[in-house]
């Protein structure tokens, strides 16, 4: 059976163009639904891309030791993912002994504990509350990060009160872009800025600290400032060869396990695992929000169904005429299915156009950088098409089953 699909499509487009306002109002729900789903998915995609970019820049084989334990419960359910996320920020259970243990593990080329001290920083511009990170001199190598200006402190230096700052600190704390040689006071000591980092690639929702907004001082300076009470935030290590990173990761875990009195209250993992965890959590959250946003698609679909039902009653006579000149039930069915699908796709198209606009605004005003790629467009297309077909089928069946005589007599 050949049916004039093309004519039906043209006719549907003609109907939409003839009653622009009505069509627009009909598909408003679809537009809102598609915009919300596309925006959420594209923002999540953008975040994932940023995180993987960040991790790729430091290297996937970087071994990270963090306090607290991730519940590695094989199953990938949403609740578990959320639990994992919350367990990341528990109170530090890492100590100086752990830092030494990692540093002394064989096969490690570089390592650094990172400890955190909170306090007030006084510069020539004013006083700021800030956390300062203490690291070893191997930190730039571990992070694969070069300095834009100056150089990183080294442990052999006689002056232990020196600091390296992230790019954002330069402007906000010192009021100039290259504050080399400037000084600030912290915990009663005067520090000299020796270097400024290149911009670290950052990502929202990332579980690492924002290094662009950090001040780095030598690890042992931090220890002495706080009488060794500064909590160890994480320990970074790099294997001398990327191939045995996994075995070294296991070795570190074994050593620390013994050191902690057979307690697994810490987590050892490679960056690649951290990426997997983050994107797993992100995927779960995205899915949840997208489903909630998708509810507005159902509302939009009901809107289409409603208008199509009204339009079928209005066009009862047309259905009668078409049947009298030989249209079969299925031909009428297909005509109205195509009409609701075209209407819904029209809404989807407007929604996608609007999503580009919304994403542009989000990208311009926040640190997020949403990505709309082909799969997302495909999802938008399939979603609106299926809404059109699902919610158009009831009216279309109704139209197809109309009795030709009653339909012809309808005025």
């Amino acid at each position: 059976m050949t049916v004039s699909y093309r004519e039906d499509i043209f006719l549907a487009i003609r109907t939409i163009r003839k009653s622009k306002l009505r069509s627009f109002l009909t598909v408003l729900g679809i537009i809102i639904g598609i915009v919300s789903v596309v925006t959420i998915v594209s923002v999540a995609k953008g975040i994932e891309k940023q995180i993987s970019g960040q991790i790729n820049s430091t290297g996937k084989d970087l071994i990270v030791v963090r306090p607290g334990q991730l519940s590695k419960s094989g199953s990938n359910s949403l609740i578990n993912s959320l639990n994992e996320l919350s367990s990341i920020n528990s109170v530090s259970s890492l100590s100086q002994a752990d830092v030494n243990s990692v540093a002394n593990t064989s096969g490690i080329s570089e390592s650094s504990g990172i400890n955190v001290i909170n306090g007030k920083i006084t510069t020539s511009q004013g006083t700021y509350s800030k956390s300062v990170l203490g690291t070893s001199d191997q930190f730039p190598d571990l992070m694969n990060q070069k300095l834009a200006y100056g150089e990183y402190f080294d442990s052999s230096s006689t002056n232990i009160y020196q600091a390296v700052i992230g790019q954002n600190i330069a402007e906000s704390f010192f009021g100039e872009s290259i504050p080399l040689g400037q000084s600030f006071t912290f915990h009663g000591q005067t520090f000299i800025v020796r270097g400024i980092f290149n911009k670290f690639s950052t990502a929202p929702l990332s579980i690492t600290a924002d290094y662009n907004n950090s001040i780095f001082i030598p690890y042992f300076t931090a220890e002495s400032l706080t009488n060794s009470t500064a909590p160890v935030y994480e320990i970074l290590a790099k294997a001398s060869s990327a191939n045995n990173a996994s075995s070294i990761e296991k070795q570190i875990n074994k050593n620390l396990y013994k050191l902690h009195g057979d307690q697994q209250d810490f987590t050892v993992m490679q960056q690649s695992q951290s990426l997997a965890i983050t994107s797993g959590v992100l995927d779960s959250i995205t899915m949840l929000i997208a489903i909630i946003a998708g509810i507005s698609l159902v509302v939009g679909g009901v809107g289409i169904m409603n208008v199509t039902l009204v339009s079928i009653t209005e066009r009862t006579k047309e259905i009668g005429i078409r049947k009298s000149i030989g249209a079969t039930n299925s031909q009428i069915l297909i005509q109205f299915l195509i009409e609701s699908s075209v209407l819904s796709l029209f809404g989807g198209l407007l929604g996608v156009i609007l999503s580009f606009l919304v994403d542009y605004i989000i990208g311009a005003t926040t640190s997020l950088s949403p990505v709309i790629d082909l799969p997302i467009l495909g999802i938008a297309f399939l979603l609106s098409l299926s809404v059109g077909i699902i919610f158009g089928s009831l009216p279309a069946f109704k139209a197809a089953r109309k009795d030709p005589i009653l339909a012809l007599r309808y005025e």
Partner: protein
Amino acid sequence: MSIIELNDVSKIYGFGDATTVALEEVSLTIDENEFIAVMGPSGSGKSTLMNVIGLLDRPTYGKYMLNKRSVDKIRTNRRAKIRRDMIGFVFQSFNLLPRLTVLENVALPLAYKGVGLKRRIKLAENMLERVGMDDKKYFYPNQLSSGQIQCVAIARALINTPKIIIADEPTGNLDTTSSRLIMELFSDIHKTGSTVLLVTHNPEITRYASRVVYMRDGAVVLDENSAIGDIAETASQTIYKKRPRKTIDDDLAGVSAIMDSIPQKSPIKKALVKKKSKPGRKRKNNTKRKK
């Protein structure tokens, strides 16, 4: 050769006290190439009869043979296809689709048949030319006069070259001039070999019919053969009595009466002449008519 054969066909609407008998044991045999006028007061079941014959409706009782085949038990879709290929409908209220152009309206039955787009347009254009509406093909129905709209509706009914044309009061909404034009078209269709069933209230119309069927209260009360060109006797008198069949000579006289009554500017005639245009033959026809 009978093309339509109704055997004790009844159609009953409603249940219980609200029962309406629209057709009561109608038996009717219609031969190929008859021009039948169906007359009768409102509510006499004329339209129901047309709907049953046109496969839009199923009889409650009785047998219906269309083209020598029983169509009582066939499915809805098959009925739609038979309707599409064998029967052309012309309505009193024209029933063109307002959102389609004249050309699209005429081509629509071909689309349901699955004819390709180019061929559809070509056939529809030819058909519009035949009814003298080819210069209006990109118009919408609301831009045409009612007479013109009915011409288009006839073109649509003819597009699938149906064997049977069913017209339910096609001139009911038209003025005398347009009515005449439309009836000339039907007469022309009849001449090409189609069977025409035409419901009418107007006795004048029976001039074109070869047979007139009178209905009352759902039953056929009189079935009379009528000379083409003459008003059927009963229709003019509204007294129901049987009239003897006319002779061949009477029929011929009737035909020539129609020929003379065709207006010179009639688009159908023009189209006809154009189509047959072997020079000489045209003149021959004309001289014959003048005699």
